[in-house]
């Protein structure tokens, strides 16, 4: 469990997950909204599973409700890591 992950590492992992989900690579950046990347709630559940597997951080449904951009998702993971 990499509880010491850096922001860059987490951002990189989130980017690669979004690519796996089918988002266009050249449109993925911290300010992109999930809506613009065609990433929906089913994708975000999978993203939460990946984050939990790799960083030991549990993201619950209510945590994710206000997450609209890639940056907000990375912020949320960082805040959970403390």
């Amino acid at each position, binding site marked *: 469990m990499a509880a010491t992950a850096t922001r860059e590492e987490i951002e990189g992992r989130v980017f690669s997950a979004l*690519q*796996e*989900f*089918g988002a266009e690579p050249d449109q993925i950046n911290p300010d992109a909204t999930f809506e613009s990347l*065609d990433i929906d709630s*089913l994708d975000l559940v*999978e993203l939460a599973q990946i984050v939990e597997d790799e960083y030991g951080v549990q993201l619950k449904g209510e945590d994710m409700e206000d997450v609209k951009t890639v940056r907000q998702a990375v912020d949320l993971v960082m805040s959970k890591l403390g």
Partner: protein
Amino acid sequence: MTRSVVITGVGAVTPLGVGARTLHERWTAGVSGIEDGYGRASEFEPKEHLSVKEVRRSDLFTQLALAAAQEALEDAGWDGEKPYDPERTASVIGTGIGGIGTLEREHIVLQQEGAERISPLSIPLLMANAASGVIAMKHDLRGQSFGTVSACAAGAHAIGMAERLIRYGDADAVVTGGSEAAITPLATAAFGRMDALSDSGISRPFDRRRDGFVMGEGAGILVLEEEEAARERGARILGYIRGYASTSDAHHLTAPEPSGRGAARAMELALKDAGIEASDVLYVNAHGTSTPLNDRAETNAIKTALGDELAAKVPVSSTKSAIGHLLGAAGAVESIATLLALRDRIAPPTLNYGEPEDGLDLDYVPNEARPLQNGDVRAIGLSNAFGFGGHNAVICLEAS
């Protein structure tokens, strides 16, 4: 006045390759798509046909259907602006089992890693109506959309329902067919345990040595349109769905009724629905599974439906001899094979046929394709599809 139904596009992914014409040409040439006892759609590479997101969000059975639908719609000339009001365009796709590959994989995850690790995509991937829903979404078809479930008759039932939607006036066009991807550990073991599968791994319908069916996978999709609307838009018309009928044996969970009574009635009713005499049938595409029970009961059914004299003359062949049994896709893939055979006025062969059995004495077109009667006669054929549960569905097609 009666609305009639034309076929304007076809698409298929089968063990003989990608493409409806590939299926027709290779089968007619006597090529087999069966390797090591399985009819896999081995030339199908999902990423060549679908986006990353589409691949990720669909089970193989839906991927096969999407690729076949794309081909069928392009074939129908729908690749630009849609020729029909989306709200009057439907999607009806049959399957025997749906996304069983997804179900099996996720069940292993459940057992080994726990409920928290199950993919949130599990249900949308495995549900048997996924192909119908995903095709409707991709192509903006906003009329009726649903799956048909009747085991190995599902693809034929879908086409029959689609034809009825147009004839009844509920839709002007329907994307329809069947899809199956059940060459999975559980499905293969389960069919094996009921002694349905061939031990020899050879599909040889109607031959004395036949010992069960060979599992196949693939999809077949047709674009059906109301005839007048199709003509108005200048569509190329491949042929017609002239008639359809469906009956039930009400006899046994898996075995066909031995006399073929229910299957015969479906053939007779399909001809009646089409307003066509048995004597006008040029070719019968048999269900022909290569199981001991089906091929005998179906031979009886053909004799009952056409009469002994006609039945002795009409060429009868089984696509399953070349691609195996595509289960819920079979009725659709074989309707397409029937249509293209009728268009070329050719009877494709029953492969691997060598030894006749007493009572199985129709003209099964052994091993080599043969020209059909040509000239002024209409190119009319029947495509049979029967399923576990006693379902019989028959499509009467005419090539233009």
